[in-house]
């Protein structure tokens, strides 16, 4: 088998070129990609586990591996070793420990044994953005919270688009009573108040399972796929009436062939322009739910939870400031990208007449 290089339509390539020329959007894209990569390797940057331990001539890389107990490194306890203490204990010996730049984990109490209270940024200790009201490092919570939001929104996009595209496409293509039935069902469905369902579900879920990312995702998706069907239904309907589809029908093409080879490639290309806005929507939705307390269960790191802490501890402004700035910056980047994509993909240039 010959490996075929991705054969991009020159028009698509031109769109990418145009996107690159829109500076603001392209720079935003590069920054956001950088942030995404950082969040993917968060364990190497912000973590209470050491990157490398050199102990008795052996190398240890504890970041992704199994737990090492204190006894493994000659400390007198059976639970997981505290690498910051280990580093202090190794001082002056042959052994050494290399800690990540921010040596804290998002759910640990960084001032064990001390009172719970927010502490302002402390560069010497590596709490660059301070700690929250139960002594957790804010930078760590932001980074891991960002990662959760990303996982949430990618799954959200995947699922809503899958359901919305499939159903919308079928409705648009087959029309008739099927279309009518599904349309009425969707109307009824979208009248169910979403927030109440979340509250009810949150209260009936057995405590053993608890609200988690996947249940939350399921609920949000259940109430969000409908908007996609509207777009896909009308786009499919429009494409179906175009002559290239008629031409395929005259040639005797089967229905799956027409849908997958002709209609979908033409309708999906526009979807790219929606994605950034969907991402922004998903991140805001998750943050809002967390803020209201119906989102991810504690101690999961999340921006909404941090915002809530911040607003109830206004005497510790660093909490609300960091959470708020993070949210604004990310949403702004995503919106810039979205605008640039729309401009690059929209065949109508921004023309005015005298």
């Amino acid at each position, binding site marked *: 088998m010959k490996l075929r290089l991705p054969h991009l339509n020159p*028009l698509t390539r031109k769109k990418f070129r145009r996107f690159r020329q829109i500076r603001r959007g392209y720079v935003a894209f590069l920054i956001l990609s950088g942030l995404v990569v950082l969040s993917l390797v968060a364990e190497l940057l912000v973590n209470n586990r050491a990157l490398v331990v050199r102990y008795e001539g052996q190398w240890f890389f504890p970041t992704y591996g199994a737990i090492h107990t204190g006894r493994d490194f000659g400390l007198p306890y059976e639970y997981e070793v505290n690498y910051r203490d280990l580093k202090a204990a190794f001082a002056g010996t042959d052994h050494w420990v290399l800690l990540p730049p921010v040596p804290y984990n998002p759910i640990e109490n960084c001032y064990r044994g001390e009172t719970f209270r927010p502490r302002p940024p402390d560069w010497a200790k590596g709490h660059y953005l301070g700690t929250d009201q139960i002594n957790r490092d804010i930078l760590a919570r932001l980074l891991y919270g960002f990662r959760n939001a990303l996982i949430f929104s990618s799954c959200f996009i995947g699922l809503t688009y899958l359901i919305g595209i499939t159903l919308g496409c079928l409705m648009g293509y087959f029309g008739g009573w099927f279309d009518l039935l599904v349309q009425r069902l969707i109307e009824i469905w979208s009248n169910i108040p979403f927030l109440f369902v979340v509250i009810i579900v949150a209260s009936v879920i057995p405590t053993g399972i608890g609200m988690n990312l996947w249940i939350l995702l399921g609920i949000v998706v259940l109430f969000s796929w409908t908007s996609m069907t509207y777009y896909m239904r009308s786009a499919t309907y429009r494409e179906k009436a175009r002559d290239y589809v008629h*031409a*395929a029908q005259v040639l005797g093409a089967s229905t799956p062939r027409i849908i997958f080879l002709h209609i979908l490639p033409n309708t999906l290309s526009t979807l790219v322009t929606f994605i950034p806005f969907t991402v922004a929507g998903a991140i805001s939705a998750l943050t809002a739910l967390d803020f209201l307390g119906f989102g991810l269960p504690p101690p999961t790191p999340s921006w909404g939870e941090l915002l809530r802490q911040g607003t109830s501890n206004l005497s510790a402004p660093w909490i609300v400031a960091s959470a708020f700035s993070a949210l604004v910056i990310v949403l702004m980047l995503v919106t810039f990208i979205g605008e640039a994509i729309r401009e690059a993909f929209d065949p109508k240039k921004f*023309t005015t007449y005298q």
Partner: protein
Amino acid sequence: MPESAATPPVLEVRDLVTTFDTDAGRLTAVDGVSFAVGRGRTLGIVGESGCGKSVTALSIMRLLPQPMGRIQGGQVLLDGVDLTQLSPAEMQRIRGDRMGMIFQEPMTALNPVHTIGRQLSEVFLLHRTRDKREALRLSVEMLAKVGIPSPEIRAGEYPHQLSGGMRQRVVIAMALACRPDVVIADEPTTALDVTIQAQILELMQSLQHELGMAIVLITHDLGVIADMCDDVVVMYAGRIAEAGPVQRIFAAPSHPYTRGLLNSIPRLTNPRKQRLNTIEGMVPSLADLPTGCRFQNRCPWRTEICATQPPLIHVDEAHTVACHHTKDLPPPVDESVNAHQARADAAAPQAAVAVPAAAAGSTPAPLLDVQDLCMHFPVKEGIFQRAKHACRAVDGINLTVMPGETIGLVGESGCGKSTLGKCIVRLNHPTAGRLIFEGTDLVPLRQRTLKPHRRHLQMIFQDPVESLNARHTVGDIIAEPLVIHRLGDAAWRHRRVHELLAKVGLPANAAERYPFEFSGGQRQRIGIARAIALEPKLIVCDEPVSALDVSIQSQVLNLLLELQREMGLSYLFIAHNLAVVKHVSDRIAIMYLGRIVEFASADVIYRNPRHPYTRALISAIPQPDPLHRQQRIVLQGDVPSPIHPPSGCTFHTRCPHATDRCRRETPVLRSAGDTGHQVSCHYDL
């Protein structure tokens, strides 16, 4: 007209240069164009798409799209005032008052959310009066003047409630509201049917007579030019190729391009199915124009010197040409002389000459036999979408197509031509009737059982942009029928695609490219290659050349005729242009409101039309011959809706010969006179 020579021109354009800034750099769309129009005169600008006609019009009106378009040089003098130097505010006062514009697409020229009375009043309020009541009164008066029935009522309606022809009348009313000195009409009738076009042209002429304005008429239709204009400017790739009085241009065309254009149009008067003269190649793109004469890549008389810009030479007092070799060209073959000859032939009493061979001898089995075909679309209303009425798009059609024969199908927009074509290739499922194709009735067949028959039954579409999937390569598009019918292996299909490309006159490297990289004519060739890939027997051609330029149209018609001869194809050729249909067809059916009103061999229909509608249709076609401006039979009103067709003869609402009987009784298609001549009218007119 000699008296006009003395009057100074009201509008004069001198060395106009207009550029556009695009991705590909700065393009000069209009390059040194000059002309002048006198009061009460009509100047035609003719040329193929992209040659700068519309940009010239927009430059005169200062309506260029911003920020890309700019007038770089030259003058536009309106009564001696240079419009290019005016401020936008001053220009606004002139537009609508002293200069009016009529656009091609009346719907886009009107605002859909305001009543037409309000839009028209707006013009008066801007330029004439402060009083709203007075403005409305003037508007109603203007609507009456452009021939809109019950104008008081119509003034309260919205653009979408009017038909295309009515809308164009409203646009004309707006352009003429303030009795401008100059009206610029950019393809004013291109979006309209021939009979409506005849109404609009008639209206423009009578208004010009009354108001004495100068008209700049932009069109690609040489027939309209010959019919309407006093002077003509022929444009090519942004420059003037030739300019002069209309009779001179048509009788003694002195530029190779003008000659090519005049020779390549199919004429009603010319013999059928002949190879049309063509202009080879295409208009060069503005991004890479040749230096020197811009026509050189298509010109049969080109020599070395043509690489330098040809000067504008006077061949006659008012007749100028930009060509180095005007003097050396052979004397023009006067197409209109042939035409006169043919007209004389036609006048002589003659028996039916061209009965197709198939119909004459012992009749072989028809390839396609359409019997009582109906396509009634349900018109859905209310929340439950119950069908209350039916749209009788096709209402009882009988038609046969013999092997190797071309049936032409002519009619105005909405008469059901396309629907009939779509029923035959089963894109629509007919509601009644039979479609016997090679002995099998196709109507009851389902998708699967129909598939083997589809190999022999193909279609070519009107819009070459719409009918090709922009995301597939040309090779994939042409190979698709072979893939669907599981013919051959990949290597064989690859060879076959190259064979087909060669057959339709496209380069072999086209296979790897995408449709958007090709011009309209080339894309239509791709569509043709796809249609003939399965070696069909019948091809339904739905307006295959309507979207193409004149010079490209003749190339595609030649290709279709050539393929027919080579492969023994039958065509069902659908078009609204009778001259084109007559050129390719053996027999012609005229459709009106879902029915065939006349059916006869192509020559007979043209020489001896029996049905009043056919006669009006033929007389409404503007002939490219300024010496024989014929009396048009102008049909009143619009085509009625097929949802509520008129009783009796459906044509009675517009027929000049209608009687009470016509309103009551429905005429049947009956034989009349010549062999195979059928007509559906109660009377022998």
